[in-house]
């Protein structure tokens, strides 16, 4: 200890203090401040870049999700449309079918009605013709009867035979 105190040089101590103060001041001005500033700036820019990359990645993922959603929606819409279109088509077909059958029924019933009318008319005409013929025959018979008794008897029996046959 005594040796240490004896070796202690106040002059060297003073010089060291002076040099150290100057050195701290100079280095801080020339080196440390710019270096620390540059390091901080660089670290900041690296951090920013990383954050930006992260953000871009998130944005990308979000866009992709959006796209997926849009696609899904479009698909669903298409299906909906298709479904609706089929339904409409079916309905139209169904309607057409019922319409057609109705039409056909109507046509058939109309035809039936027409046939009935024609038939009745024809029957009426036949009846009239028969009556005319009967009258003509009756006229002829009457005229013959007046000329030949026997012959008129035969004729009447033939006529009666015919009528019976009819």
């Amino acid at each position, binding site marked *: 200890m*005594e040796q240490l105190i*004896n070796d202690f040089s106040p*002059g060297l101590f003073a010089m*060291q203090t002076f040099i*150290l103060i100057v050195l701290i001041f100079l*280095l801080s001005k020339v080196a*440390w401040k710019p*270096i*620390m500033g*540059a390091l901080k700036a660089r670290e900041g820019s690296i951090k920013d870049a990383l954050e930006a990359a992260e953000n871009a990645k998130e944005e990308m993922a979000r866009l992709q999700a959006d796209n997926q959603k849009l696609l899904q929606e479009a698909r669903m819409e298409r299906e909906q449309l298709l479904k609706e279109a089929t339904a409409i088509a079916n309905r139209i077909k169904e309607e057409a079918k019922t319409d057609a059958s109705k039409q056909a029924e109507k046509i058939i019933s109309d035809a039936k009605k027409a046939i009935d009318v024609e038939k009745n008319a024809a029957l009426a005409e036949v009846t009239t013709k028969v009556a005319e013929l009967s009258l003509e025959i009756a006229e002829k018979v009457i005229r013959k009867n007046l000329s030949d008794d026997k012959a008129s008897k035969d004729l009447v029996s033939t006529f009666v035979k015919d009528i019976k046959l009819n």
Partner: protein
Amino acid sequence: MLNRTTGIFLIFILLLTTSSAFALSGSSEEAAGQVDTPDEINDYIRHHLQDSHYFTLWTNGKTGHHIGFPLPVILIDEGLHFFMASKFHHGETVAESKGKYYKLYHGKVYETNSEGEITLDDHNHPTNAKPLDISITKGVVGMLLAGLLLLLGFGSLAKNYKSSALPKGIGRVLEPLVIYVRDEIARPNIGAGKYEKYMPYLLTVFFYIWILNLLGLTPLGFNVTGNIAITACLAIFTFIIVQFSGNKEYWKHIFWMPGVPVLMKIVLMPIEILGMFTKPFALMLRLFANMTAGHFVVMSLIALMVTMKSQFGAIGSSSMAFALAFFITIIELLVAFLQAYIFTMLSALFIGMATEEHDH
């Protein structure tokens, strides 16, 4: 790449050990005689550990001629005295400056009469007056060199950032170190948000101590961080910074410890006050002792080639000394970093303790 780095590293270590050995063996014969006995070697090492007014590379033992150069002497003694250390003639003659007489005695400058008389007390310490010696000694040269290296290295790194965000050249080595000090020493100990204010001091001290420690391993023979005045100055800087950054809580914990009985508060107060001073004191002593011990061990091991010459022969003792010194020098390289790290780490820790926000 790794092999190449290892190779360069090994060559560096080889250079360190061999040239230190060369420096010692070259100067192992002082003018006073041969440095052969353990006592003489001890004296030689002790002499090396002290600061010097000469930048001696080696001494020619036969002629007593010192190879090296004298450094300027600056004394404050009723005015400024400035002359070259060559005027002392290695303590053999009296140097006269502005009517005052000075003599170099065991590496220190004393004021004497014109005859150069040094009076000694019972402990063999001179009683002569000592002027304030602010000479550019070997230690100061070391400090200036370290400062210059720091300014050049980190100045270039700072300039480099102006043109590109990535460091080039020497900056590639320095930048991770700066980031290391910031992220591993300052931020965890002081806390985010507060550490930036102390970065200039911590960075300066870290690299300053490290470079000076490394300079001590070169054969130039610097021993700056192994000088108590230097470590005391560094520790006092930390002490002052800690006291000035101490918040209310810090002072409260020293003078009136919260959360303990009143009697304990009174007992704890002197202990805490003592603790304020023991912390920087330990800083000072740790760095000083480690570096001094390192120099002592390396030089003693190199000196084995002189002391063991009679037992093992010239080649045996030399190779043994070389192997051991080589090994210790590698460890000293680690210690050089470690001590710089510990000093900075503890400084940051003390600052952190003083600025800590307590929430009870």
